């Protein structure tokens, strides 16, 4: 028995040794290839492909009668020199930078910062510098967010897709609870029976709740909802109908959230960005053929869904929606008599002044015209100084008081004094047209339009489907924001103002824009080296050089 066992175990040992050697030889080849590739992220997928090739070829040799060890040796030899293969792969396997998009983002940040500084002035002293850093810190914050999302965004999204989506949906749910029960929660947090929350002076936790219930957070969440919706849609694409129904429910949640806020028309544009952003994403998925649904019925279903959602949004508040449509088309019917600061009047004024701009230089207005524009008399009075508004005596009296109030600021009238309060932020293009001429304003418009164009260009160059759809949805948000912003600047405003990415309106806007742009940059950066199926945890950020070469 003992005699019989010895040759058997020796044979087993020989086979195991050979198997190990063969394995080591393949691994050494792959390691030599890896050594030539500078980007160590996602190398496992490259290795897997080369290993599969070597094994297939070795099997062929074995079919021809070669021994396993020799078959593998020849198979590796046929692959060519490992360092040559590695060097060639190194040209392809690399991180990329979407330079045009990155440059545009930085240029728009500089533009936004310069606009802020020009408007507020800059004090050249230590305290001035400290105040400037404090006031404009959100630009630094935005760039930090941009860097972090670019660096970690796509790998995290790939590795934790479900967790990211669930977290976002939880945030939506949390906000929903907060919106609908904010008064109750605030009372509870304040420990009082205060019901008039607008008059309360809140300590810190209450300030935070109040801040979370603000229109800025609402707009931010809805903008981020577009790429998250794209990810959910993509993950569920095999069951298109279910995915679409889920997406409609998801968008309906945005509509329900809007009901819970105080902000009325401030929710209009963020909501429209969500609805049209999701529609565009669904259509893109269908056009690309990345789902099992046929294109035309799928698009029809998406459009029907949008129509139903728009009805659900508009019908319960038809009065307000109609008022805003009038503001958009015929602002003169809505222009307030008692306050020339309102948006309707601003639209009327912009349309009036834009008709008089020059190619270069400031719009030409006499002192008398400046005063009439500055006091709104040009609009509410006829040329003889008679009241031209409604017949209400109360309105006329209010207006006279307003003119008197305004005149104290118009001793030496300037263009800046006659323009609406947010001119430098929300009407930056109009301001440039009036202040510097339509040619510089056109140049600015082109620069502003270049952001969504560069974002789309970057998205279309991404090969991964999930990455491309995510980047496309982010680009759509930029496109919609930019279109709404441009129409506002031509005196066509619907609802409240929309922020211009990286240029206007503070920390929340900057953070969201940085996340969206960062996601596009991140997907583009890792697109070549990370695919949807790559197991990131095994090699992300880890150098293959740390592994030791196995001697054969």
């Amino acid at each position, binding site marked *: 028995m003992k005699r019989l066992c010895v040759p058997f175990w020796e044979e087993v040992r020989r086979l195991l040794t050979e198997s190990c050697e063969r394995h080591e030889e393949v691994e050494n080849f792959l390691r030599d*290839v890896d050594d030539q590739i500078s980007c160590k992220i996602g190398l496992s*997928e*490259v290795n*897997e*492909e*080369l290993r*599969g*090739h070597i*094994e*297939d*070829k070795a099997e062929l040799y074995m079919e021809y009668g070669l021994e396993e060890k020799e078959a593998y040796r020849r198979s590796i030899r*046929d*692959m*060519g*020199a*490992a360092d*040559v*293969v590695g060097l*060639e*792969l190194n*040209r*392809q*396997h690399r991180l990329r930078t979407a330079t045009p998009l990155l440059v545009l983002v930085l240029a728009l940040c500089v533009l936004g910062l310069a606009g802020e500084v020009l408007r507020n002035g800059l004090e050249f002293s230590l305290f001035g510098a400290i105040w400037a850093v404090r006031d404009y810190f959100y630009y630094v914050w935005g760039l930090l967010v941009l860097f972090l999302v670019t660096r970690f965004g796509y790998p995290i999204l790939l590795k934790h897709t479900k967790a990211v989506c669930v977290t976002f949906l939880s945030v939506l749910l949390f906000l929903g609870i907060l919106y609908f029960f904010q008064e109750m929660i605030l009372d509870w947090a304040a420990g009082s029976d205060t019901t008039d929350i607008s008059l309360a002076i809140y300590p810190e936790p209450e300030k935070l709740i109040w801040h979370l219930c603000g229109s800025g957070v609402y707009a931010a969440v809805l903008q981020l909802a577009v790429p998250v919706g794209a990810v959910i849609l993509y993950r569920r694409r095999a069951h298109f109908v279910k995915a679409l129904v889920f997406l409609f429910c998801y968008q309906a949640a945005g509509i329900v959230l809007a009901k819970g806020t105080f902000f009325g028309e401030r929710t209009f544009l963020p909501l429209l960005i969500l609805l049209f952003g999701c529609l565009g994403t669904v259509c893109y998925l269908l056009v690309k053929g990345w789902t099992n649904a046929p294109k035309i019925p799928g698009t029809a279903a998406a459009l029907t869904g949008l129509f139903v959602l728009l009805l659900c949004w508009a019908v319960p508040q038809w009065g307000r929606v109609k008022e805003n449509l009038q503001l958009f088309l015929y602002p003169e019917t809505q222009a307030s008599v008692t306050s020339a600061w309102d948006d309707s009047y601003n639209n009327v004024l912009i349309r009036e002044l834009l008709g008089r701009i020059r190619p270069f230089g400031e719009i030409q207005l006499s002192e008398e015209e400046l005063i009439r524009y500055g006091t709104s008399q040009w609009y509410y009075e006829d040329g003889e100084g008679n009241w031209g508004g409604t017949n209400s005596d109360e309105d006329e009296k209010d207006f006279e008081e307003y003119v008197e109030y305004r005149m104290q600021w118009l001793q030496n009238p300037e263009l800046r004094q006659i323009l609406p309060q947010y001119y430098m932020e929300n009407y930056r293009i109009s301001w440039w047209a009036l202040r510097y001429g339509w040619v510089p304003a056109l140049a600015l418009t082109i620069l502003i339009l270049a952001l969504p164009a560069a974002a789309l260009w970057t998205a279309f*160059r991404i*090969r991964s489907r999930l990455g491309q759809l995510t980047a496309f949805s982010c680009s759509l948000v930029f496109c919609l924001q930019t279109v709404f912003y441009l129409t506002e600047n031509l005196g066509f405003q619907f609802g409240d103002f929309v922020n211009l990415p990286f240029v206007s309106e503070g920390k929340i806007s900057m953070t969201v824009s940085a996340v969206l742009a960062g996601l596009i940059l991140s997907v583009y950066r890792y697109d*070549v080296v990370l*695919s949807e*199926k790559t197991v990131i945890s095994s090699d992300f950020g880890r150098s293959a050089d740390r592994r030791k070469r196995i001697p054969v």
Partner: protein
Amino acid sequence: MDKKMMAASTSLLLLKLLEEEDMYGYQMIRELEERSEHVFSMKEGTMYPVLHALEEEGAVESYEKAADTGRIRKYYHLTGKGQRLLKKKQDEWETYEKAVRAVLGGGAALAY
């Protein structure tokens, strides 16, 4: 065959193979060898950088599929962009081939 000539036409050959069906790397090598009666024999590892470049360019897409043996293989699929690229490369190749033939045959140069 001269390596430089082979390298210049590798992407054309790979695109042409993928026009017919989706294939994985080793399968493409086998097909190339068989169809060319072993004239097109390349260092096999050098095909992957070409494939990856085509993928980055958007001419091909990849997906994974398990073989009968259980081995996961990376298949390549020709995209619409790839079909346009193939057409362009084919036209270029035909022009080149005509020109070479014209010169070797001693005929008049092609009129453009």
